[in-house]
């Protein structure tokens, strides 16, 4: 077949991208297809759709359908993408296992990531600085074993991206078409991910993100992954939907513990209460999957850094002046030491001159 797409692929691409089906119809077809489907059956489905559909110039003509699908795939490859369908062998097994898998995934980047081990990191768009830094660290460590799956928004998604993008083991699932820049400020980031990792979307090219598309996208996040880590989530955060889907699909759910009073972490704490794994570093996740955490090189600290880090650990989060007072050094020296701790990944600036300790 042309470009490695089979007859079934073409029909599924047509159904996913050109047929203008609603969600329910797509789900019904997906449920049939997930059990394995022949080209003949698909042709039948397409034919039935054409007969009920309006304004279609062709009648029960699968050649026309294939032509339309090929045209779409041509556009897709023009945009640097490719399609993977439920009937294809590259379609991730974990996603095929969910009750409502997408008919086809439109991707750009490294195809091989689709079938490796995958782990999802999500978080709300506004999250505390320490959670952002911790997420980045965990993501970077996880990407040694897993492909990190996440969205492409600010905040939690961004932490996961920043951690994993260097290794290239990163899958970003978009709520919009592959060629739509959402959010606009991440346009160049998106291009970088397409180059180093993988962009995935179930919506056709040119379709903008709608409110409901995030919901649908979150099921792909959960469906792709063996587990989900929630960095931060308010009580009604979208990250909780991903966790909820993961539970429904029988995947593991992890959450960072938060300050009991912090609204930004209420959802995470609730998840832990309900039985999610409490996660403080990547080791917790590796342990849950029965993996050994790799030995990590010890960070070299000067005596002054040791003292200040100890003080910071005691306080959890403290003002530079307070830390300086406790360590008995001038503030600017403390600032310098804290800057070096920040570069070593042991502390993070939490807004103002507040600093928060990070787990090594």
């Amino acid at each position: 077949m042309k470009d490695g797409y089979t007859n079934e692929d073409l029909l599924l691409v047509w159904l996913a991208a050109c047929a203008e089906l609603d969600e329910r119809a797509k789900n019904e077809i997906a449920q049939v297809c997930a059990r394995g489907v022949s080209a003949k059956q698909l042709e039948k489905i397409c034919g039935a759709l054409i007969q009920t559909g309006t304004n279609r110039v062709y009648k029960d003509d699968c050649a026309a359908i294939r032509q339309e699908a090929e045209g779409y795939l041509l556009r897709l490859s023009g945009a640097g993408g490719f399609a993977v369908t439920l009937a294809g062998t590259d379609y991730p097994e974990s996603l095929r296992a969910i009750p409502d898998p997408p008919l086809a995934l439109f991707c750009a980047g490294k195809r091989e990531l689709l079938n490796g081990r995958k782990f999802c990191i999500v978080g709300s768009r506004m999250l505390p600085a320490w959670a952002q830094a911790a997420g980045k660290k965990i993501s970077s460590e996880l990407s040694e074993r897993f492909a990190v799956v996440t969205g492409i928004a600010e905040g939690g998604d961004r932490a996961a991206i920043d951690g994993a993008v260097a290794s290239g083991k990163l899958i970003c699932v978009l709520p919009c078409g592959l060629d739509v820049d959402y959010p606009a400020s991440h346009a160049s980031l998106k291009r970088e991910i397409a180059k180093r990792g993988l962009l995935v979307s179930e919506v056709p090219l040119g379709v903008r993100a709608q409110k409901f598309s995030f919901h649908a996208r979150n099921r792909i996040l959960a469906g792709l992954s063996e587990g989900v880590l929630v960095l931060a989530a308010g009580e009604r955060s979208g990250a909780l939907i991903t966790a909820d889907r993961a539970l429904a699909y029988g995947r593991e759910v992890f959450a960072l513990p938060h300050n009991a009073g912090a609204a930004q972490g209420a959802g995470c704490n609730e998840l832990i209460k309900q039985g999610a794994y409490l996660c403080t570093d990547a080791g917790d996740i590796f342990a849950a999957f029965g993996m050994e955490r790799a030995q990590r090189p010890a960070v070299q600290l000067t005596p002054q850094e040791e003292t200040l880090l100890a003080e910071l650990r005691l306080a959890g989060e403290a003002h530079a002046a307070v830390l300086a007072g406790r360590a008995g050094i001038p503030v600017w020296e403390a600032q310098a030491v804290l800057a070096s701790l920040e570069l070593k990944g042991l502390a993070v600036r939490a807004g103002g001159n507040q600093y928060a300790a990070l787990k090594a």
Partner: protein
Amino acid sequence: MIAKIVCFALQGLEGVPVEVETDVAKGIPAYEMVGLPDAAVKESKERVRSAIRNSGLLFPLGKITVNFAPADIRKEGAAFDLAVAVSLLKASEQLVGAQTENTVLLGELALDGSVRPIAGLLPILISAKAHGYTRFVVPAGNAKEAAYLRGAQIYPVRTLAETVAFLLGSASLAPLSPEKFEPHLHARQTADLKFVKGQPVARRALEIAVAGGHNLLLVGPPGTGKTMLARCLPTVMPDLTFDEALEITKIHSVAGTLGEDGIVSERPFRTPHHTATTVAMCGGGNRVVRPGEISLAHGGVLFLDELPEYKRSTLEALRQPLEDGKITVARAGGTFTFPARFMLCASMNPCPCGNYGSADKVCTCSPAEIRRYRRKISGPLLDRIDLQVEVDNVPYEALASDSRQESSAAVRERVNVARAIQNVRFEESGIRTNAEMSERELAAYCRLSGEGEEILREAFERMKLSARARSRILKVARTIADLAASEEILPAHVYEAVSYRLGDSLE
């Protein structure tokens, strides 16, 4: 008879000699002015006529022609009144035997014959002296300003009658005795670091900024004392030297903002409002080109409160003067260069609601909003601000406590020491502060040890710094080392310098 009197016209900060030629001829009484005078100069006709009459002198009857030479430069303002009046009197033979050669007459006339002060006297006097004139008649109201010119005989006059008597030699006037320059003619400004509660980080940044001539950005929630900190900047800067004071006074004299002292003895602190236009900021004007806020801040501080509220184009216009220390304003009337070596201090909120990073208040802005707010300040401008610090909410106890903090004077002493080190270092380079170092000087004076280089490399990669940001960090590290009287830049100095690059870590 034709009479010639020398006067000076102001072009930017330079005075240009102008000859006022007057001819009184027989004919139908008329009074003409030629030689490109502007409206204010032409109006001098009426002022001169009344002043002469009211001084008990005779306004000549006849065809009067006043010519300003050279005719190709535009003459502005009322500073020619006195010269016109005297040349009229001389042309009508009322000043026989008067000594008017090589005497520059400057002043505006009132209808009753009294002489009013003019703007821009000091720059005129300085230029005139450079042209070889040493005898001046100036308004008594400008006497204080004029007294700072050395090596010239300057006679202050109150009225036209007094001027005539002096020129005729019938009355003697004492020339001004040169004034000795004293910094801080008035009591120091009320701002002082000892009144600033808490803020150890910002205080330190302030000290570094002044010591090395670096620009400073204060980021903090509303009401945390950013403005108060900024107002303390001039109080920790080194005292003005006479040459500096003269240079600054020239600018303020032209702008007409010179106070009663006649000289600027305090470092300027300019706070243009954020509605200021680019012309107000950089200088310009329709015909008369006046220095803008950045030139008025020359030698001192330009404080831009709420930086993101300024018009983008206005802020971008600051980039070139920040590098060059001067601004060139080109207008139809000519091209003028004003000095503009100022220290930029700016303040802003961390986000639109002002509470981002606040310990006790919740920020309601989305990351995109915060980024949009910060993007209002372009990267190139932010790159030129070496020190970016967070100003925190001061806890109530610190506000209420009466314990006074270190005073500006104590900080200024340390600054002076650091500046002295720099003066020795840059003796042959023609620059004054670390902030002005070029790549050549950076290579010579900012060598890092292996460890320091490693830190900088790591920061460079982690914070995705630009090449310019890297050299800025080096310069700040150099200043921190100077404050510590350290020949070498130690790793701790580099770390501290890195900790002031807030903007890069927050992107």
